[in-house]
């Protein structure tokens, strides 16, 4: 279980990014975080990943306070996740290399992942030689290589075209259903938040505060996107957001 308890963040330059953020995500559950640009969503993910320390409050994973990057969590960023100077293979391998997994094991893990994600024939390509959708698949592969219990994602699909985005959303949903990975997904798309989050946390403009937590029991199926329930949930979320702003 992941818990944010009264998390506040003031940057050294005085910018108040987050204020008293409290919510929790159950093991194996998926949670979407949505809020206007600049409200502190990325900051919050960095705090969850143990990279930034909140100025107030705490983050707990399975009851233990996060003070450094947890071994069982993987972070996926929108633009700076992949290293342009590393090939697809090297990027996916990086986490394993840093954790000093032996070379043979690295190769086995990475190649089977690349095969599964249809990236094998691109293993020696550099990120800029791939489409945006493929780049994000590589980023997901790199996260999966560490066999994480938790995935933290910062607007992973926001620079993709609508069709590619839907495909990757479906892919992610299937992954969540299969591997039972606890997911926190930051997004600014209401549809994405509703499609992928069992729980939807709505943040206010800066400094980000939790405005509302919407339960979304109906999600979990690729078909959800076409159901009336889905549209109604989107409407509900949209209304809460507009009340917050």
């Amino acid at each position: 279980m992941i818990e944010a308890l009264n998390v506040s963040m003031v940057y050294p330059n005085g910018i108040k990014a987050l204020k008293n953020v409290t919510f929790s995500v159950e093991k194996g559950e998926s949670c979407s975080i949505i809020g206007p640009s600049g409200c502190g969503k990325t900051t919050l993910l960095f705090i969850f990943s143990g990279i930034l320390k909140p100025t107030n409050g705490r983050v707990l994973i399975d009851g233990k306070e996060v003070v450094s990057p947890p071994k069982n969590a993987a972070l996926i960023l929108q633009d700076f996740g992949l290293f342009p100077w590393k090939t697809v293979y090297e990027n996916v391998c990086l986490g394993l290399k840093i954790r000093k997994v032996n070379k043979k094991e690295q190769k086995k893990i990475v190649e089977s992942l690349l095969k599964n994600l249809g990236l094998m024939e691109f293993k020696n390509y550099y990120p800029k030689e791939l489409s945006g959708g493929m780049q994000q698949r590589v980023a997901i592969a790199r996260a999966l290589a560490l066999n994480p219990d938790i995935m933290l994602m910062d607007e992973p699909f926001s620079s993709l075209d609508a069709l590619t985005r839907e495909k990757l959303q479906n892919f992610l949903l299937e992954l969540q259903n299969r591997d039972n990975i606890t997911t926190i997904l930051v997004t600014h798309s209401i549809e994405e938040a509703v499609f992928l989050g069992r729980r939807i946390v709505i943040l206010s403009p800066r400094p980000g505060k939790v405005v509302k937590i919407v339960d979304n029991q109906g999600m979990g199926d690729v078909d959800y996107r076409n159901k009336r329930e889905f549209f109604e949930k989107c409407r509900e979320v949209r209304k809460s957001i507009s009340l917050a702003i």
Partner: protein
Amino acid sequence: MSRSEKKHKLSYLIAAFLLILAWSVISHLLNSPAVPSPHLVFLSFIQQLERDLITHFLISAYRVVYSILLALSLAIPIGLTTHEKVVDSFVAPFIYLLYPIPHIVFLPLIVIFFGIGDLSKIILIAMIVFFQVLVTTRDAARSVNKYYIYSLLSLGANKKDIYIHVIFPFALPKIITAMRIGIGTSIAVLFFAESFATTKGLGYLIMDSWSRADYPSLYAGIVSMAILGFILYLILELVERRVCKWM
């Protein structure tokens, strides 16, 4: 070899040919012993090869390569570690105070401390390349986007990993660009450094043949200097192609 590479090579040949052609025409028009024709220089070049041109060339090459390596081995680590604010607050004032000075004026000091031998020449050249590479490396190391570093940290990286996987590869293309400029400067300073207190090196050869009005030898020296620079560029290009494939 790919087609574009072939074209690339061809354009080099054409450029070389045009230069030699222009040289021939000028020498023909001026008809002065101070501008001998290309084929005369070529003959003298061959003649000089049989004498001691190769020794001069090798000594110059040794001095300049040694200098460049010395400069890099200091400038790159120092430049990269200015990524740390503490290091930078120490290094930056030195850069601001020392970089704008034409370093060649330190020659007397260097000679006082290190004598008039090779070491002084190497230090003089190295010092100039050092600053050029240092300034660029520092700029690059300080401009790494922090999200790259966060992304690496989330994988469990330590400080050393950050330098190996982010800061160094990010700065490398910029370092190579700085080196390209540095090579040009280093050859110029090499010439200057070899024009005194030595009887070896291409710079000496050029100055000596000039004073004897031995123009073919003079030109053989100049051409050798150009070849030295060209070879260094070529090596750098090969290195760049290997390590900056991602650009």
